[in-house]
């Protein structure tokens, strides 16, 4: 059921907004992303800065930092996830109700970043939980976090309610909890959740030839 674009804009001029239910629904969801008040390291300070007066995350409906995961929609993994902290992070994500999103803020949260060679540093939170948006940077500027939230809003706005295109969490039986790693004698057990983390393709193949291409 599509609405004619011309008619739509004509109506809009007269103050009547016609839009599919899906769009209204997504608009509501994307305009009230409540993050979990949860900072890990350096990036958390920039996260606070983006919620403070100068960058004012409230303009995006995302300033309501909730202290409990039960009331949060978004987990901003802001900082280095160490192996000692990883089980807690996964547990927090498990405790969040669906639909839930995860932003990996900063190099450490994405891949371990500069600390990736450390014996106690997890090489990216996406080993255990799915990540929706990655923000590179060390730390990213507050604007970069806002940009990521806008990116996430775009993702939410493009989700469909129709059967077959629905996001994972509309399915009652879909997993919303992820395995929590246990502390082992030398390392976390398991070291990665293979259902969540898949190795990518090999990336060492973009060469000078690709520059010459128009």
């Amino acid at each position, binding site marked *: 059921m599509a609405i004619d674009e011309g008619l739509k804009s004509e109506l809009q001029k007269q103050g009547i907004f016609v839009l599919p239910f899906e769009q209204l629904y997504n608009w509501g969801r994307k305009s009230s992303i409540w993050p979990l008040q949860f900072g890990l390291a350096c990036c958390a300070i920039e996260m606070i800065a983006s919620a403070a007066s100068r960058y004012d995350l409230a*303009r995006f409906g995302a300033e309501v930092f909730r202290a409990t995961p039960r009331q949060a929609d978004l987990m901003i993994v802001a900082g280095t996830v160490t192996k000692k902290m990883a089980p807690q992070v996964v547990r927090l994500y498990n405790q969040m109700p669906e639909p839930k999103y995860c932003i990996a803020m900063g190099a450490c949260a994405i891949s371990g970043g500069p600390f990736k060679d450390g014996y106690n540093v997890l090489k990216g939170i996406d080993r255990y939980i799915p990540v929706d948006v*990655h923000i590179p940077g060390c730390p990213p500027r507050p*604007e970069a976090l806002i940009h990521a939230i806008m990116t996430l809003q775009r993702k939410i706005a493009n989700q469909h309610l129709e059967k077959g295109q629905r996001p994972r969490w509309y399915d009652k039986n879909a997993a919303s909890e992820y395995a929590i790693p246990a502390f082992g004698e030398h390392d976390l057990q398991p070291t990665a959740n293979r259902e969540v983390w898949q190795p990518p393709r090999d*990336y060492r193949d973009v060469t*000078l030839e690709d520059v010459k291409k128009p």
Partner: protein
Amino acid sequence: MGFIGKGLFEGMVVTARNFVGSYFDKERLVTVQYPEERVQVPENSRTFPFLVFDKDSDPVASMRCVACKICEVECPPQCIYIVMDRDEKGKPQQRPKVFDIDISVCMQCQICVEVCPFDAIKMDNNYEKSQYGRFDELVEHLPELLKSNEFYNKIKPTEATAVDAKLKADAEKKAKKAAPAAKPAATAAKPAAPAAPKPAPVAAPTAKIAIPDDAPFTPEQRQWLSGYLSTVAASGVAPAAAAPVAGTPAAPATEAPAGNWPWHDPGLGMQRRLDLAKETPIADKLMAAMAQTDCHACGYDCRGYADAIATGAETDLSLCLPGEAETANMLKKLMQEAGKL
């Protein structure tokens, strides 16, 4: 002293003043309405590295990076990966074939910029890099990394102007140094003429004059030379005589600094350089085995490193990063031949 609750009241006055003031006082109205308006980032601001090239028409040829791998070694989180470009014969081309920066690891410390002797890598100030994916999107390859000098000038005018001036001065100095050496070099190079490019046969005036790919010319020289040769060809003057004089011998001359080392030319292959240094003392031979980029990756220029090895001041033979294993092996071989190892 005052009444009970005076402190609280005073505090509320402060908040009230801030609240009301935020409507009138610019000092108190601090919010930046990103994304509609943006904070003017200072010129020094840095996010992720990019590679500079000089000419828009040919980014590959005018790339400043010579793949010396200093940044790869010095990068604290090891997020740079470089493979040197080689032709079919395996001869280094003084430019990277692969240059990857994993910006999901990069800590924006700017150390790569500081250690680069060629001003080839610089810091961008674009921070809007959020992506849905991690590997496909967050690894920057050559096509994304290469940015023009104009772009660099635009984002960091002061710094880029200084860099341009420095590069220009360096080039002039190099040319000046080369000028007195030009004449002896020209005569010296004559015996080596057979190896020099055979001038194109006198053919139709429109014919493109082919300059062999391995001829030791910089792109500018190459361009000038092909222009020159075609005018010569077009004017009907026998190029057979003109070309060797005008073109070939001049090339090592512009490349060779005051020391007049014919092998000091990164465009030549290892074997060719060693041939040129055949009859010379061990220090020169060692020098000929280097990559000739004068990148200071070893802590010296090529001459200095060779002298240091020859005098025994430097014992580590694996310091020549752009020369890779080829140079290290050759240095070892030369030292063994000289009986110093």
